[in-house]
């Protein structure tokens, strides 16, 4: 029997080449580690790894809870909430039905549906940084993920009850509530006290944070409920991010990465030689994740008046069996609620779909075009005329693509100088503002020919894209031989390429900001710092006193 040290060492050694492959193919680390686990499974027999793997589960849930921001929660039901719940219900139903048709009993088929619906990507964000979403589809899919994460956590607590009898579920939910209350007390009062008591030693705060996690894990086990509940409560206890705890949060990342890597490798190692049943079930899950889920999302978002491109790109961001599903099935397996066949199929499906999702994300524009060509993502144009307003005589005008901060200033400028213009924008929630502030706008996707036709592209004088999105710049620069095109991009290298392809000018935001800053700079570095003047300008910009 190999000792634990050798086993862990072997795991990381086998994982290394797969991680390099992940880097080469720009795939996330989770599937690389699961596949490495498939290889490790040949060498490692020990079930001792399960303890460490479950620590990895606890850390995954813990860190994703620490990451949740309370501003993610609000009581109004908006599009992402509806889309998330709608997709979940639809996919659970489809998965459940498919499971029944294949021949599984309802108690098992429901797990097929549930796991297929979980696309959350816990490994996505880092613990530390707030994420700013630039693009509609990224924002939509991130929000949908968060909502589905939360629902998945709730379902996990139900699963942890080990049975679907109401009384037991209620009992376990009760335990969950007790743990959450205690976690809230730690969050509000105790954590700060501990910090002060420890004189803010980062070593001690880290150890205390890990101890708090383990305390909740231990308590959850003593209460007979799942460690996931404990881990969630621990995350609530630490969900608190003033800068003074930044070292602790950063340190947790390393511990998290280490144990979570072991978790994924162990999960892969638990898969034995797949039988025919496992293979069929895997194929079913992959098809649901890669085909059915995106189609459902596209249909839902289309019906909410989102452009078909936005809907497709959002759908393609959700086309995986996510890491959360793995936690779900391992807990269910330990509780004896699912059969090993389903367990193995979910692992294989997760590994496959986590790889394929990297490719669909990379080629999302191309996939959209193919699907649009095949007529699978709905028609464009129905909403176009409904929500657009374009005056009759629109010639020698400026076309402004996008309606963010840049575009708002341009619209003000055009209004001031009475220059003809039209705005093209595809976010439904900007329609009201456009009606109020813009004299002409088209609600549509600039990729669509109908949109460009309505905006009278061919007779425009200048097109200004205010959206920093390569696919749009790449598309618009094709028109540079017919009209003047000003584009926006992040860096000089891309700007250079666009200029070579005929762009009239390329706005590199940071460059423009640097130009502006240089004028102000001398006030800052000279011995007599003229900060007052700068602060006045800032106040002007911010609309408040600085």
């Amino acid at each position, binding site marked *: 029997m190999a000792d634990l040290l*050798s086993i862990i060492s072997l795991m990381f050694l086998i994982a*290394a080449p797969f991680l390099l492959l992940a880097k080469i193919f720009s795939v996330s680390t989770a599937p690389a580690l699961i596949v490495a686990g498939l290889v490790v499974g040949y060498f490692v027999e020990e079930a001792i790894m399960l303890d460490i793997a479950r620590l990895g589960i606890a850390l995954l849930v813990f860190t994703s809870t620490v990451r949740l921001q309370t501003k993610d929660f609000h009581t109004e039901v908006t599009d992402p909430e509806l889309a998330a719940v709608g997709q979940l219900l639809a996919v659970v139903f489809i998965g459940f039905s498919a499971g029944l048709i294949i021949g599984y009993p309802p108690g098992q088929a429901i797990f097929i549906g549930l796991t297929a619906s979980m696309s959350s990507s816990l490994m996505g964000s880092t613990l530390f*940084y707030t994420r700013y979403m630039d693009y509609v589809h990224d924002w939509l899919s991130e929000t949908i993920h968060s909502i589905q994460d939360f629902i998945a956590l709730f379902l996990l607590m139900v699963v942890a009850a080990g049975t679907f009898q109401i009384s037991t579920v209620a009992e376990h939910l009760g335990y969950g509530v007790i743990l959450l209350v205690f976690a809230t007390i730690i969050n509000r009062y105790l954590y700060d006290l501990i910090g002060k008591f420890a004189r803010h030693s980062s070593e001690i705060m880290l150890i205390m944070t890990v101890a708090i996690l383990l305390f909740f894990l231990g308590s959850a086990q003593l209460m007979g409920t799942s460690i996931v509940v404990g881990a969630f409560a621990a995350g609530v206890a630490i969900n608190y991010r003033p800068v003074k705890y*930044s070292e602790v949060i950063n340190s947790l990342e390393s511990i998290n990465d280490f144990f979570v890597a072991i978790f994924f490798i162990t999960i892969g190692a638990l898969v034995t030689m797949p039988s025919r049943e496992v293979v069929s079930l895997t194929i079913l899950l992959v098809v649901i994740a890669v085909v059915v889920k995106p189609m459902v999302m596209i249909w839902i978002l289309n019906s909410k008046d989102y452009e078909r491109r936005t809907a497709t790109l959002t759908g393609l961001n959700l086309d995986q069996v996510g890491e959360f599903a793995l936690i779900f099935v391992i807990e269910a397996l330990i509780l004896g609620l699912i059969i090993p066949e389903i367990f193995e199929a979910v692992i294989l499906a997760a590994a496959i779909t986590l790889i394929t999702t990297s490719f669909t994300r990379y080629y999302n524009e191309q996939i959209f075009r193919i699907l649009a060509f095949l007529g699978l993502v709905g028609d464009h144009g129905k909403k176009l005329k409904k929500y657009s307003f374009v005056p009759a005589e629109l010639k020698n005008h400026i076309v402004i693509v996008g309606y963010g901060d840049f575009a708002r200033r341009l619209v003000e400028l055009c209004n001031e100088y009475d220059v003809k213009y039209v705005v093209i924008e595809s976010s439904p929630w900007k329609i009201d503002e456009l009606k109020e502030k813009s004299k002409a706008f088209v609600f549509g996707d600039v990729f669509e020919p109908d949109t460009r036709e309505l905006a009278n592209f061919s007779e425009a004088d200048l097109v200004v894209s205010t959206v920093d999105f390569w696919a749009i710049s790449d598309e618009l620069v094709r028109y540079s031989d017919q009209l003047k095109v000003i584009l926006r991009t992040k860096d*000089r290298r891309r700007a250079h390429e666009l*200029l070579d392809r005929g762009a009239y000018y390329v*706005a590199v935001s940071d460059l423009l900001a640097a130009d502006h800053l240089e004028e102000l*700079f001398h006030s800052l*570095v000279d011995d007599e710092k003229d900060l007052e003047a700068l602060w006045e300008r800032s106040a002007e910009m911010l609309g408040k006193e600085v």
Partner: protein
Amino acid sequence: MMEALIGLIETYHIPVELPSMELMMAGDFIIIIIYAALMGLLAARLKQPTIIAYIITGLILGPAVIGFVEPGELTHTMAELGLAFLLFLIGIEMRVDEVKHILKPLLKISVLLMILISSIGFLTSIGLGFSTSEAIIIGLAVMYSSTAVTIKMLNDKGTATSLHGKIDIGILLFEDIVVVIILTVLAAGQPESVMDVASTLGMVFGLVSMIAIFAAIGSLYFLPPLFRFIANNQKIFFLVSIAWFFLFVLVSHELGMSIEMGAFLAGLAIAQMPYSEELEARVSPLTDLFILVFFVSVGLELDTRALLTYWREALIASVVLMVAKFLIYVILISWQKFDPETVFRGSINMVQVSEFGLIVGSVAVAGGFVDSAILGFLTIIALITMSISVYFIQYNRDLYEFVKPWFDRLTGGAIEKPPTEDLCNHAVIVGFDEIARRVVLLLEDKYDDIVVIDRNIEEDEAIERSGFEAVFGDAKYHKIRKAAGLERADFVFSSSDQREINEMLVEEARDGATVLAEARTEKDAVHLYKRGVDYVVLAPQLAADQLKRYLTAYIKEPVNFEKIVEADLELLRSDALFPTVRPHWSS
């Protein structure tokens, strides 16, 4: 593996009864960490070193007192890995060119040191009434200083790379090699001939050399391109570094060598590359967690019965050994002509008897060389000397100041400490976007030293070629900010629009430093102003304003627009890292 899992499931699946300690996931580990955290908290409050807290935790939880915890395999493994991670971390901090000049003196010191201390140990044991064979084993056990205690304390104090730190670490590593040799010989049982011992020795030397050569080849040939390839992905960078660490650990483990030595060599191979600071920042938290388990397990291994047999003798021996070690170190280190402060601090750090002594003792007991009471004797000595030495190390600077007048007269070396080359009153730039590039150009005349923190290795290299300094890493890590000398900088510019980073920067920058930071939103900007940032660059708004000015020119007269953007276009077409052309507006 599935069969084993199903077996476990049947064991776990008891929905009604409460799970007992054995069935709980890693129950012993949970108790150890919680208890150690509470003790550590107390230690931090009382300003005591945490090592003491952890050892006491082990003592209380283990068979010596409550006997509540029986360490499982997870705990054992984490303890082993704790020391290995610590040595890996130290290896990463070592730059070969910084230790080259002390290698020869180190070798001379180490050999004589071990001979002298083991002789003192032997003679002291004879004097206390032990037999010759027992005295030999005791002599062999007490000659080491504690790698774990000394290195952890040096690391915590940030003095691992000071001159005395390097000397101590060098000696400890040498002792590591000797321990491995001795353990290998003892573990082979009673030797039949001198040839037996010689062949074991030869094998050990051969294996250590092989591992060292492999590490050197790695460092020169395949690690640089490998790390360059993965540097931009933080997670993969970290996991592959850990895999490199485990390669050495596994090989050392399978060959019966010291995994700490392997781990140190693994770290040393990485130390020569620019990624080491970021890796240090990533590995430190793991080390903190695992080394805690190590120290707790030292306490857990203690057994009361064995402890009490020779407690009086152990007390006497502790005092004698601490004084003798200190004096021997002082004589030998000053013989190599190091300055008095280095001599004092280097010596006082090493007065304890190492946990390796306990391992030597255990192996000697297992091999039938001595009985377990001797192990108890060694244990008390280790406990007393480790605990006291922790305080010596903690306050070694103050102690030196206290004895300085007499001490400097007695020693008096010729090797000057190299002057510290810490950056001061310089400019620190965090991140390297277009705005940062412009800021660097604008600051060039005003500051002699400009340091850029950035996670793009190609840019870092280009920055260094342009005559500035670059630190590879993420500024969110304290070690990276320290490497850039943030707290001594006169000017700080952050091109990160992450509010959390900018808050940390303004908090750590010294009073009077000028701090500029970027922000994405007005809300973040106001927040940063309240925190004390001197000026917030709202890049999107500034850019939008600038574009509006350009388009105003276009609307009025397109020809003017084309003249205005001429310089911009030249800039955009340039591939230079620091293009010298300036746009129209600034002239």
